[in-house]
C-alpha cells in the first residue's frame, strides 16, 4: 500500500506508536516520530511511496524525537535516533523534517556499501541515465527538480547508487532538497508541485523539500544504465553551453564526490572507471533554466537515436 492510503491522523498515530515501514528503493526504513511536522512532511512528500504497518525486518530503525526536560520549552530540539543511538547532535525543532532526510542519507552512506555511492543527482529517460555530480551552489538540485517535471525520471537528487557488479544505477526516488533562493524559484516554475514548509537557519541556509513525481516513485524498482556524467554550474547571465570534460578529469572528480570510494578500494576504482568509460562526460554552464532544459532534451535525442523530443 501507499502512504496516501492512510489519513493524516492515522499516519501520525502510527508514527507516534509502532512506527511505519517505508520503502525507498532498495532500503526499508522503520520510522517513528512524535513530531507533528515530520508526520505532516511524510504524508506530503512520501504520499506515493510503498509503506507497511508492520514488517519482520527493516534495514534501518530510526526515530525523530524531542529530548525531554528543559528543552521542551526553551529552544526546543529534535534528535535523530538510529536504533537507539544518536549519531548527530540535536537540531532545532524547526529542522526536524530536513533532519529526517539527512538521517536517511546518513543511513545509506554508513550502511549501504553494497553500492558505490556518489554525491550526485541521477535522472533517466528512455533507459539512459545522466549523473549530475553536485558541488554546493552548482544549482544541481534546482536543475534536477525542473528536469524531473519535464520528462525525466528521478532516481535521486543526492546519491547515485552504482552497482559494483554491473555498473547499473538504482533509484531511491526520495524528496528533492532545495535551498535558499531555489525554493522560491521552484515554487514559481512549478506552482503545482508539492513543497514542504521551509526550515530556516540550517547549516545549508533555508531548506524545503519537493515531493518526487508520482511516476518516478512508481518506477523506483527500475534500474537505469548510465550514459552521461554532467557537471552543472549555474552562472547568472552566462551562455548555456555543454563542454566536453576529459574522462581522466571526470574520474578524479567523481572519486572526490563519492562517499565510499576509499571503502571499496580497488573495486571502487574499477567501478568508477567502468562508469566513466561508458559515459559521455561534460561540463554544463547555464544561465537560464529553459535553455538548460532544452539542452537536456537534445542530449537524450542524440544518444537514444530517433526519439522525438518531449516537453
Amino acid at each position: 500500500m501507499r502512504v496516501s492510503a492512510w489519513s493524516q491522523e492515522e499516519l501520525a498515530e502510527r508514527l507516534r506508536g509502532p512506527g511505519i515501514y517505508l520503502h525507498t528503493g532498495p532500503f526499508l526504513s522503520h520510522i517513528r516520530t512524535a513530531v507533528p511536522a515530520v508526520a505532516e512532511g511524510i504524508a506530503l512528500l512520501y504520499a506515493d511511496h510503498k509503506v507497511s504497518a508492520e514488517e519482520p525486518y527493516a534495514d534501518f530503525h530510526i526515530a525523530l524525537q524531542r529530548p525531554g526536560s528543559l528543552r521542551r520549552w526553551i529552544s526546543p530540539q529534535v534528535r535523530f535516533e538510529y536504533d537507539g543511538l544518536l549519531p548527530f547532535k540535536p537540531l532545532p525543532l524547526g529542522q526536524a523534517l530536513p533532519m529526517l532526510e539527512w538521517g536517511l542519507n546518513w543511513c545509506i552512506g554508513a550502511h549501504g556499501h553494497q553500492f558505490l555511492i556518489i554525491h550526485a543527482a541521477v535522472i533517466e529517460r528512455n533507459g539512459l541515465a545522466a549523473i549530475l555530480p553536485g558541488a554546493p551552489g552548482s544549482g544541481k538540485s534546482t536543475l534536477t527538480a525542473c528536469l524531473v517535471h519535464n520528462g525525466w525520471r528521478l532516481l535521486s537528487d543526492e546519491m547515485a547508487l552504482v552497482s559494483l557488479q554491473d555498473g547499473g544505477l538504482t533509484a531511491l526516488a526520495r524528496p528533492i532538497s532545495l535551498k535558499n533562493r531555489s525554493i522560491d524559484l521552484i515554487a514559481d516554475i512549478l506552482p503545482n508541485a508539492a513543497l514542504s514548509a521551509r526550515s530556516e537557519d540550517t547549516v545549508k541556509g533555508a531548506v524545503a523539500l519537493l515531493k518526487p513525481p508520482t511516476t518516478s516513485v512508481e518506477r523506483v524498482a527500475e534500474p537505469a544504465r548510465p550514459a552521461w556524467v554532467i557537471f552543472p554550474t549555474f552562472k547568472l547571465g552566462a551562455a548555456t553551453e555543454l563542454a566536453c570534460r576529459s574522462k581522466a578529469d571526470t574520474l578524479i572528480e567523481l572519486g572526490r564526490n563519492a562517499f565510499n570510494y576509499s571503502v571499496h578500494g580497488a573495486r571502487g576504482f574499477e567501478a568508477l572507471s567502468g562508469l566513466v568509460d561508458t559515459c559521455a562526460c561534460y561540463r554544463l554552464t547555464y544561465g537560464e533554466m529553459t535553455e538548460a532544459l532544452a539542452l537536456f532534451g537534445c542530449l537524450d535525442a542524440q544518444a537514444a537515436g530517433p526519439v522525438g523530443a518531449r516537453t
Partner: protein
Amino acid sequence: MSRREATGGRLLLRLAGRPESFATLSLADWDLVLRQAMRAGILARFCFQLAEIGALDKVPERPRRRLESARVLALKHQRDVRWEVACVRRALARSGVPIVLLKGAAYLMAELPSARGRLFSDIDFMVPRARIEEVEHRLLDAGWEPAVADEYDQLYYRRWTHQIPPLRHFRRNTVLDVHHTIVPLTARAPVAAEALATQSLALDGDGQLRILAPADMVLHAAVHLFNDGEYDHGLRDLLDIGDLLQHFGEQPAFWGDLARRAEALGLTGPLQLTLRYLERLLGMPLPDEIREAAARWQPAAAKRALFDALLLRALLPDHPSCNDGLAGTARWLLYVRAHYLRMPFHLLLPHLLRKSLLRPAERGGDARRDLQLRVEEFLRLGPPHHPAARAAAPEHSE
C-alpha cells in the same frame, strides 16, 4: 543459561557460537540479531563466518546485503591497518627497536582467525620501556601528533598507565597506542614486560615486527577484557579469545603452556574468567586439563556469583534488547573496578576529585545532556577516551 541470556541475547549467542544455526532464523530474528551484532561490533565477523561455511547465499536478501556491507568496511579497515603498520615500521626501522604488535593489529598481521571482520579503532604495540621515549620522538618526527592535549591527561598516561598518551597521525588520522607493558605501572599485580618480550615471535625476516607468543597473546586479551573495564566490544573480545584458543589449541602442548604461563605471570584471574564465560555464554568445549586448572583458580563462591551478576550482563551487547535494569550499573561497577586495579587507592581519590570538579562539561546540547556528561565523566574516573569515536562510527569514510 540465566534468565537474562534466555531473552535478549539468546539468538545472538547461539549464532556466535554456532554460525551454522543461522538456518533456523526467521526474518524477524535476523532483524534483531543484526542490530545486536552491530552494537557488539561483530556484524562483519558474522559475514566472514557465514561465507566460510558457504552459507552466505542462503541468508535472506536484506540481511545478506547488510552483512556484505559490513564486510566491505572491515576489509577497508584491514587494508588501513596493514598500511599503518608498514608506516610505523618505516618510522622505526633505523632504530632497530623491537615492535611487538598487540591485539587486533597482531591478529591481522599474523593472519589469525580473530582478525576477520574486525573494525579497528587504533593500533596497539609494545616496545621496551627503556626505549619508549626514543620511539615517541621518532613517531612524532614521522607525522604522528599527541592526541591528548590536556596536560593532566598527558601526565596521567605517562605516570599511571602502561602506555604513552595516544598518538594520532596528522594526515591519516590513525591512532597509535604505544605500550611498554600490558598492565599499568601502579597496578597491584604488575606483569614483567621482559617476560613477555623474551617469548615474542618474529613476524618477518629481520625480526623487528613481532607478536606475543600464543599463550601470552591469549593472556593479554584476557587481561584487556576483564581488567580494562570497557565492555563496548566485550562479546567481540570474548569471541576473539575463543578463536585464539581454538586456533592455538590444535597443538596439544598449548594448554599446558597456557596454564603454566598464567601462573607464572599472575594472570590466572582473567584467564579463569575468560574460560568460564566462553563455556557459559558460547558453549565452547574445553579440554579437561584446562578446566581443572580453572577450577583451582576460581575465586570463592560469593565472588564468583558477583562476577557472574556483573559480567553476564556486561558481556552482552549494550543494546536495549539485551540490557536489563541492572546492566548499566554492572558496567559502571566494572569500570570502577578497572580503575581500582589500575591505581592504588591513595592516587585514585585525587584523580576522581580532579576529574569531577575541574573538568569542564562539554559545550552544546541540552542541560540534561550536560549533566549526563558531567556525571559520566565523574563516573568514568579516567581521561577522555580517545577515538573510540572511530569504533563507534566506523562507517564514515572521508
